[in-house]
C-alpha cells in the first residue's frame, strides 16, 4: 500500500484525536466562564450575610442573600463527614489490612456497588428510613444521605492508600513486637495519611455538590434559623444547602434569583477546585 497514504492516515488520525479532545474541553471552559462572569456580580456582602426569604424581597428590592444555604451546607456537610470518615476509614482498613477476613469479599463487592449507585437512591433510602417515620425533613437526614454518598469513596480511597504502603513497614512494626492493631495505627497509617486525606477531601467535594439526595431529605429552607450559629437548628429541621438551593433558584422565574444561582455555582466550583488542588499537592508531596 502506498506509504504516503499510510502517513496521511496517521496524520488524519492524530487530527481527529485532537479535535475530539477539543470538543470535550471547550464546553468545560465555556461553562466555567459563564458561571464566573454571570455570578460574580451577585457575590456581595449581602450574599453571605442575608437569607433568601420569599420572592417578594426581590420585587421590593430588599436585601437578600444565601446565608442560610451557606450555613446549612457547612453544618450538614460537616455532620456527614463526622459520620462517614470513621466508618469509611474503618471499612477501608478492614479491606486492606485484614484481607483474610471472611467479610471481605462481600464488603468489597457491596462497597463498589454503593459507589456506583446514583446519589438519588441514597436520598430515597434515608427518606424512607428516617424522614417518613419521623414526619419531618431535617438537616440530619441530609447529613445521613451525604454520609452514605461519602462512605464508599472514603473506604475505597483508604483501601488504596493502605495497600500502597510497602509490606516492609508492617514487617518492621511486627518485628518490634507491636501487636497488629498498633502496627496498623502507628506504623502504616502515618505513611498512608496523604492518600487518606486526599480520599476524604474528594469524598467531601463530591458530596458537597450533590443536590438530589438533599431534595429528598433536608428539603430546603428559605430562612436562617433564629440562632444562626447553632448546628442543631439546621439538623433538626428542614435546612437549606447550596446545591439544592442552586437548583431551586435556577428553575425559578426571577432574574435576581438566577444571578444568585450563578454565584452559588461559583462557590461550589471554587470548593471543588480548591479541594482538587489540595489533594494534588498532598499526593505530590508524599512522593
Amino acid at each position: 500500500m502506498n506509504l504516503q497514504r499510510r502517513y496521511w492516515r496517521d496524520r488524519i488520525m492524530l487530527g481527529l484525536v485532537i479535535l475530539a479532545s477539543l470538543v470535550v474541553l471547550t464546553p468545560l471552559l465555556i461553562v466555567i466562564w459563564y458561571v464566573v462572569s454571570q455570578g460574580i456580580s451577585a457575590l456581595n456582602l449581602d450574599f453571605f450575610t442575608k437569607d433568601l426569604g420569599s420572592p417578594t424581597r426581590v420585587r421590593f428590592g430588599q436585601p437578600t442573600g444565601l446565608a442560610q444555604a451557606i450555613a446549612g451546607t457547612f453544618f450538614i456537610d460537616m455532620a456527614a463527614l463526622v459520620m462517614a470518615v470513621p466508618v469509611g476509614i474503618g471499612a477501608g482498613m478492614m479491606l486492606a489490612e485484614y484481607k483474610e477476613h471472611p467479610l471481605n469479599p462481600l464488603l468489597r463487592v457491596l462497597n463498589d456497588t454503593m459507589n456506583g449507585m446514583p446519589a438519588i437512591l441514597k436520598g430515597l433510602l434515608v427518606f424512607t428510613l428516617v424522614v417518613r417515620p419521623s414526619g419531618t425533613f431535617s438537616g440530619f437526614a441530609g447529613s445521613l444521605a451525604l454520609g452514605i454518598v461519602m462512605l464508599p469513596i472514603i473506604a475505597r480511597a483508604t483501601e488504596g492508600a493502605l495497600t500502597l504502603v510497602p509490606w516492609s513497614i508492617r514487617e518492621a512494626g511486627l518485628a518490634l513486637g507491636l501487636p497488629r492493631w498498633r502496627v496498623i495505627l502507628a506504623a502504616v497509617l502515618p505513611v498512608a495519611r496523604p492518600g487518606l486525606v486526599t480520599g476524604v477531601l474528594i469524598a467531601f467535594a463530591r458530596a458537597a455538590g450533590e443536590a438530589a439526595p438533599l431534595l429528598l431529605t433536608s428539603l430546603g429552607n428559605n430562612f436562617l434559623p433564629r440562632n444562626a450559629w447553632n448546628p442543631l437548628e439546621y439538623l433538626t429541621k428542614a435546612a437549606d444547602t447550596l446545591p439544592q438551593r442552586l437548583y431551586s433558584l435556577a428553575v425559578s422565574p426571577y432574574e435576581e434569583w438566577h444571578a444568585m444561582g450563578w454565584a452559588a455555582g461559583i462557590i461550589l466550583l471554587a470548593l471543588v477546585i480548591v479541594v482538587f488542588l489540595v489533594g494534588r499537592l498532598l499526593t505530590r508531596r508524599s512522593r
Partner: protein
Amino acid sequence: MNTAMNTGMTEPATTPRIRMETKEITVDYGNNRGVRNVSLEFEDRKVNALIGPSGCGKTTFLRALNRMHDLMRGVTVTGQALLDGDDIYAPGVDPVTVRRRIGMVFQKPTPFPTMSIFDNVVAGLKLVGIRDRDRLLEVAERSLKQAALWDEVADRLKSPASRLSGGQQQRLSIARALAVEPDVLLMDEPTSSLDPAATRRIEELVGVLKEDVTIIIVTHNMQQAARISDVTSFFLDGEVIETGPTDKMFTNPEDERTEQYVTGRFG
C-alpha cells in the same frame, strides 16, 4: 536461487557479500554512552552472534540496526548503518520501510493476544495493504513452515494465539517477522525466556533460516553463540573488542578480554 548451494560441493571462492555494515555507530542516552564507534560487517546469509556481559551494549547496538531508538525520547544515534550499501539513517529515509526490510524478534514472545494465529502471522502484510485472502494464506503457510510451526497449528489457524505455549509463541513471532520477507532478521535473546526443549528447537530453526535471511542474534548464552553462529562479535562497555569466525573466537581469540569472557572468567 543459487543452485550450487544444493549440490554439496564447495562453492567457488567468491568474496563474501556484505549485506549489512555499520560505520562508527554511537548511541547516547542523555549523557551516557550506550554504544561507541561500533563498525561491523554482516555477511549475507550468515548467523552473526553478538555476545558480552550484561550492560555491554549489545542489545542497544542491535536496536540501532532497525531504528528502534527513533521511538525513544532522549536517545541519539550517530554513525551509519548500511543495508546493501544504503545508509538507513540518511535523511529522508523512511523508518517504516527500514523495519520491513530489517525484521526483529524480541526476548519475550509477543503475539498479539486478541488476534488468531493466522491474523498474527499476516499482521505485517495487512499493514502494507495486502488483503487478498489466497495470497495471505499462501504467505502464512510459507512463514509458519519456515518457523517450523506449521505442523502444529495448521488445523487451528483461527484459534487465539495466546493459547500457544511459550516456545510456540516465539516461533509464531518469528513467522510473523518472516512473513514480510525481510533481508535481515535481528534476534534479541530470543530463547532466554524459553525452556531448554523450546530453546533447542529455535536454535535448529536458526540454522535453517540462515539460508534465506541474514541473521544477527544477541545472546547472553555463550554456548548458544558457539553452537549456532558463523561469526561472533564480543562487546564490552559499549565497544566491540573483537570480532571473527566463531570457531576462532572461542578457541583462539586474539584479545585477552575475549578469552577471559569466553572461558567464563567474568560475565
